């Protein structure tokens, strides 16, 4: 471990008593848990803390060091001077000693400065409730899966997303076969019609989201869509109070491929769907071209929990704005075998019982 310069991480202190402030998703305010003062974002901007305009503009120097092949950055907690170690993509974290929010400003400025943010609208209790309810209606969920130990791991994270406005234009050719059969007298008639389609047009998509962090599975991030962009706010560090945050590590030029594919697929379906229906259409030539109109870098709220089960990690996520909860739950194989046997025996028993009743009645 070599020498390094210690920089102070920003926190969000209560202007009244100096205790850490946390963002309250329910009230959309910042509340001090010690003196119970409440502040709006505009109130806080008057003070020189994480929410201030000054701190939202300036970049703080950092020192990096390599450890175990990974790059770590060390900061000093503004509250207790303890070391806060974060990896290179962490943008907001907590001081493990005093629990203060540590916003690593250098990860959220310059090229990494988000332009928009959707603040958390669903608080942790709703995420816990959703996770607890996982077992309801799902008989094959392992018993220990929704244990208190796992529930306590639920963490609010701002995930970096690229939001693309994409215009898709061009032409599309397709064909379809329509087969009709009817009967007249002693003859069966079969009419086969082949249709050709040619369509040319354009349409625009707004805010197609692509997860900008390689640390999170794209499929999970896809599954918690959509976010309501009407609630997008101008980015401010203060919203990160009480949450973890990531910076992007997938550049926008790389992430756009997924957005383009989705936009082209939807355009193809829309164009084919708007044509007369003469059977299932098969695309013979697709000359649709996407073009990016605008790209925004936004932090979107997600409640996350990683659960270890039989040596494997399972990630669950809840959209912090809409409450959509997703994740692949492992199967309790013992339960699966038990249900298999019980259902099989049950069905066999019912059929035998019915056959006995029918035999007796006859």
């Amino acid at each position, binding site marked *: 471990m070599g020498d390094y310069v210690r920089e102070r991480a920003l926190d969000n202190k209560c202007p009244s008593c100096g205790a850490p402030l946390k963002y309250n998703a329910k009230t959309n305010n910042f509340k001090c848990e010690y003196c119970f003062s409440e502040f709006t974002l505009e109130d806080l901007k008057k003070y020189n803390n994480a929410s201030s305009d000054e701190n939202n503009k300036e970049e703080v120097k950092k020192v990096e060091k390599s450890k175990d092949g990974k790059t770590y950055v060390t900061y000093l907690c503004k509250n207790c001077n303890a070391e806060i170690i974060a990896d290179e993509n962490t943008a907001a974290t907590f001081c493990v000693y005093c629990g203060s929010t540590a916003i690593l400003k250098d990860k959220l400025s310059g090229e990494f400065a988000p332009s928009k943010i959707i603040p958390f609208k669903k608080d942790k209790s709703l995420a816990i409730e959703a996770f607890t309810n996982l077992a309801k209606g*799902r008989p*094959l969920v392992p018993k220990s899966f929704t244990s208190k130990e796992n529930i306590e791991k639920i963490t609010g994270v701002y995930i970096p997303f690229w939001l693309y406005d994409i215009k898709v234009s061009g*032409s599309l050719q397709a064909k379809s076969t329509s087969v009709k059969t009817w*009967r007249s007298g*002693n*003859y*069966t*008639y*079969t*009419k*086969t*019609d*082949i*249709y*050709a*389609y*040619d*369509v*040319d*047009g*354009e*349409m*625009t*998509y*707004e*805010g197609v989201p692509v997860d900008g962090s390689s640390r999170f*599975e*794209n*499929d999970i991030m*896809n*599954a918690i869509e*959509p976010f309501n962009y009407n609630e997008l706010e101008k980015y401010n560090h203060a919203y990160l109070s009480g949450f973890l945050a990531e910076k992007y590590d997938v550049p926008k030029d790389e992430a756009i491929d997924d957005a383009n594919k*989705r*936009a082209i*697929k*939807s355009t193809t*379906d*829309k*164009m084919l769907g*708007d*044509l*007369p229906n*003469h059977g299932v259409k098969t695309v013979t030539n697709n000359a649709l071209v996407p073009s990016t109109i605008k790209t925004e870098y936004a932090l979107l709220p997600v409640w996350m929990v990683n659960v270890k089960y039989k040596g494997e990690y399972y990630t669950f996520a809840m959209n912090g704005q809409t409450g959509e*909860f*997703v*994740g*692949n*739950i492992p*199967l309790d194989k013992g339960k*699966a075998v038990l249900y*298999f046997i019980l*259902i*099989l*025996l049950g*069905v*066999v028993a019912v*059929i*035998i019982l019915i056959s*006995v009743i029918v*035999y007796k009645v006859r």
Partner: protein
Amino acid sequence: MKKIFKLLFVTVLSMLLLNVVSASTKTMERNSSNNYGVKKDIIITESNMNNILNTKYVNANEKIYDFSDILTDSEERELKNKIDNFIEKTGMDFVILTDSVPYYNDHDNAIYATDFYDYNDFAIDYKNYSGVILFRNTYESDPYYGLYTTGDAQLYISYERSESILDDIYDSFVSKKYLAGMSKAIDEVAYYYDAGIPSEYEEAYIDENGNIVVPEHYEPPLLVAILTGLFATGISTKVMVSKNKMVYKAKEANEYLKVDTVKYNRQDTRLVSTNTVSHYDPPSSSSSGGGGHSFGGSSGIGHSGGGRHG
């Protein structure tokens, strides 16, 4: 003098024997005073009265009734001997009937033969009136022959056995070698009697109406139950497993489409080709199923059997 007596004795004996064994075509009158010749436990109704009156009333001891006159006297004697042996051995009757009767369908032959059996005194002292009647219809435009069973004879002569006998005597009947054919029929019925009741009728019995009753045994439909169970379990498990999978890859961006930006410069639909073909497909006709092996005669007594054209 002795020679004359001897000659007379032989002549009289021969005449007596001829009278006893030769096929009789003598019929008696059916009227109310003799209960229309029906001595069996048969209820005479308006519906079967015509059948009774149209059935020839004969002496049931003779067993061979050659109204078509297709058997010689010696053939009849030979057959009568066989029948007597058969009756003695089996405790069941055996009747040979030949006649020329116009008919519309095979069932008419069966009714004619079994009416003859039922409304005469055949097997009247035997259990279930058990016996067999071999009928040769010499109707010129469509000759026919059939073998019909009554009572316990139905259990011994199953459908397969009946078909086998009919097949075996076919050539003889078509070639009018009636002695050979009829002898074979008697022999084969006797053979099957010796073989015993076939396994399919092992637990069967003849009910009060003369019908075969095969008791049904409950057999649990295990294979069906297990297959259905496996299918249902497979579907249930798939549903349960799918409930644990909530993550999917988004392939579309429909939610983000600005509907007011959709603009089409061209939307052409063209019918490239059309082709109509037809094929002859008449409605399938349902088969009558051949009429089955067992049937009820006009008397209400159950019978089994079948026949052949030829």
